[in-house]
């Protein structure tokens, strides 16, 4: 009833190419943006910002980057964590070499470094596919993390081998470093994520998105409709790694505040890959749903017993947490193997048809 699309006619291709051909989708997104930009900042505590809101956004952005490569262009990658690391270290070096550089610019530039590294490690995709390519990107994962440890110039020869984010101001407000407040960092991350998501939506629904999807669905046929496979694959690696690199820079500068090489090791790659798969490959929305399930839900579950006054030992809560989240992942993948985004698409379809079954 709420999702009735009857009576919404398109009379021009312009209207048909709108971001939300169905009015209710636009209203729903407006509501979510209102929550994100107004309601959460007014109500959330420091803990909620740091433990849930900011990481969900950053992980969703990383998953979005990976999704462009794996979900849209069909190139499986296991090196996401390392590409995030490239973005983070590039941003760190940029801000330490040019301390006057605007932080937004530094983050935007650091994406180019990870894009270049991504393209270099994407070259094998011209010869190999599927799991074999995944193993090739695994080489990037191990090599880059090794490089972060061994190349002391990257962490300015600090004794700990870790990078520390200094206090960085933008227009008189501290946005990164120990003095930054959570709400400022939240807004910063939210704006970057919204902007990049909008760009990603535009790219994936246009010519380049179609080219990527053609390569994913049948590369031989793609070549025979005139698509240059090399360009298509490498551009997917470049755009994907750019977004992943930006998310890596945000990960360290706007959330962790410090990082050591092991942070970018393979568990991070897998975590981002899980978000993308559970959210739904080949979908933009899915990255957010996946990030909420994998990043935010455990935090909610561990905070719940104490909030409700239930006396359970914190170790037990942690075990319960792992069990519940693990079970949920399995349930969701059995109910809808194509991910949460598809789950939502089915619900939406049912809502449009309601109360009729077909």
């Amino acid at each position, binding site marked *: 009833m709420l999702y009735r699309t009857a009576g919404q006619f398109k009379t021009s*291709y*312009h209207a*048909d*190419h709108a971001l939300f051909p169905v009015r209710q989708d636009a209203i729903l997104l407006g509501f979510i943006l209102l929550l994100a930009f107004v309601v959460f900042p007014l109500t959330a505590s420091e803990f909620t910002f740091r433990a849930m809101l900011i990481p969900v956004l950053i992980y969703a952005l990383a998953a979005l980057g990976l999704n462009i490569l794996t979900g849209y262009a069909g190139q499986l990658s296991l090196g996401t964590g390392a590409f995030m690391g490239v973005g983070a270290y590039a941003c760190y070096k940029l801000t330490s070499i040019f301390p006057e550089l605007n932080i937004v610019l530094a983050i935007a530039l650091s994406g180019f470094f990870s894009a270049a590294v991504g393209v270099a490690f994407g070259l094998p995709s011209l010869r190999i596919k599927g799991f074999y390519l995944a193993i090739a990107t695994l080489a990037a994962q191990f090599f880059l993390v090794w490089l972060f440890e061994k190349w002391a110039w990257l962490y300015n020869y600090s004794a700990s081998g870790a990078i520390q984010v200094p206090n960085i101001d933008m227009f008189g407000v501290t946005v990164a470093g120990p003095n930054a407040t959570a709400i400022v960092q939240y807004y910063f991350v939210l704006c970057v994520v919204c902007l990049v998501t909008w*760009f990603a939506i*535009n*790219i994936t*629904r*246009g*010519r*380049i998105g*179609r*080219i990527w*999807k*053609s390569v*994913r*669905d*049948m590369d*031989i*046929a*793609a*070549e*025979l*409709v*005139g*698509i*240059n*496979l090399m360009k298509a694959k490498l*551009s997917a690696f470049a*755009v994907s790694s750019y977004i992943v690199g930006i998310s890596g820079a945000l990960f360290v500068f706007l959330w962790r505040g410090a990082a050591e090489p092991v942070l970018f090791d393979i568990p991070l790659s897998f975590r981002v890959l899980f978000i993308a798969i559970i959210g739904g490959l*080949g979908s933009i929305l899915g990255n957010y749903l996946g990030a909420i399930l994998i990043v935010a839900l455990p935090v909610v579950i561990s905070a719940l017993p104490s909030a409700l006054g239930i006396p359970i030992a914190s170790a037990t809560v942690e075990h319960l947490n792992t069990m519940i989240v693990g079970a949920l992942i399995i349930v969701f993948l059995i109910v809808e193997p194509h991910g949460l985004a598809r789950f939502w698409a089915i619900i939406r379809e049912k809502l449009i048809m309601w109360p009729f079954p077909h």
Partner: protein
Amino acid sequence: MNLRPDPRELAAPDDGIAKGAMLLEVKNVSLSFGGVKAITNISFDILKGEIRAIIGPNGAGKTSMLNVINGFYTPQQGTIVFRGEERRAMKPHHAVRQGIARTFQNVALFKGMSTLDNIMAGRSVKMKRGLGWQMLWHGPALAEEIEHREKVEEIIDFLEIQHIRRTPVGKLPYGLQKRVELGRALAMEPSLLLLDEPMAGMNLEEKEDMSRFIIDVNQQRGTTIALIEHDMGVVMDLSDRVVVLDYGKKIADGVPDAVKANKQVIDAYLGVAH
């Protein structure tokens, strides 16, 4: 009221070749895979504006011939002259840019994409706006998208597939998939269209529809067509000239009636008593 657009509006690009003049010439082409000779010293030509059928028993080298023409295989010997340009090796995406489009024996659509997106993908080569404009979407990229959408909608109308515009092609029945594939090839506005068994696995009604589309494309848009087909009734009715292959060799070439009466062709199809 008839809303179908006049297919003449969708005319193939003018390639400066007069109707009836040589569009493509295959010169002494030989192709082998290791010790297997797929094509042995074959020569034939395709004239602008005609429907040229390539027939032969299974394994005669018909599909290999198409793969040579559109650059998917590189022949060991011989050359291809297309629009006056002689070549042996070429990348398939260059062949497309030169104006050769094709469909496949086994449908080769992008299964996860809608009918509309599949046909739009056929126009990728003609669209120029780069990543920067695509990111912003509004402005030049959208204008270009709409311009090509209009062309694609004309093709959708022509092939009568409006009702499946938004359906992922993986969910479509086989006959419609073949039609979408033809639509994708037409979207490239080719001057030479290669059809590899466009009617395989179709029932009579679907074959009649497809034949009508092929004739319309040929006559009203002026697109030259090279066609592989096993249904002899269709081949003899549709085509202007037929070339017959058997075991990688050319055994006959001519108008349908002459080919039908050719002793070697009858032997190849029916077998000979030794």
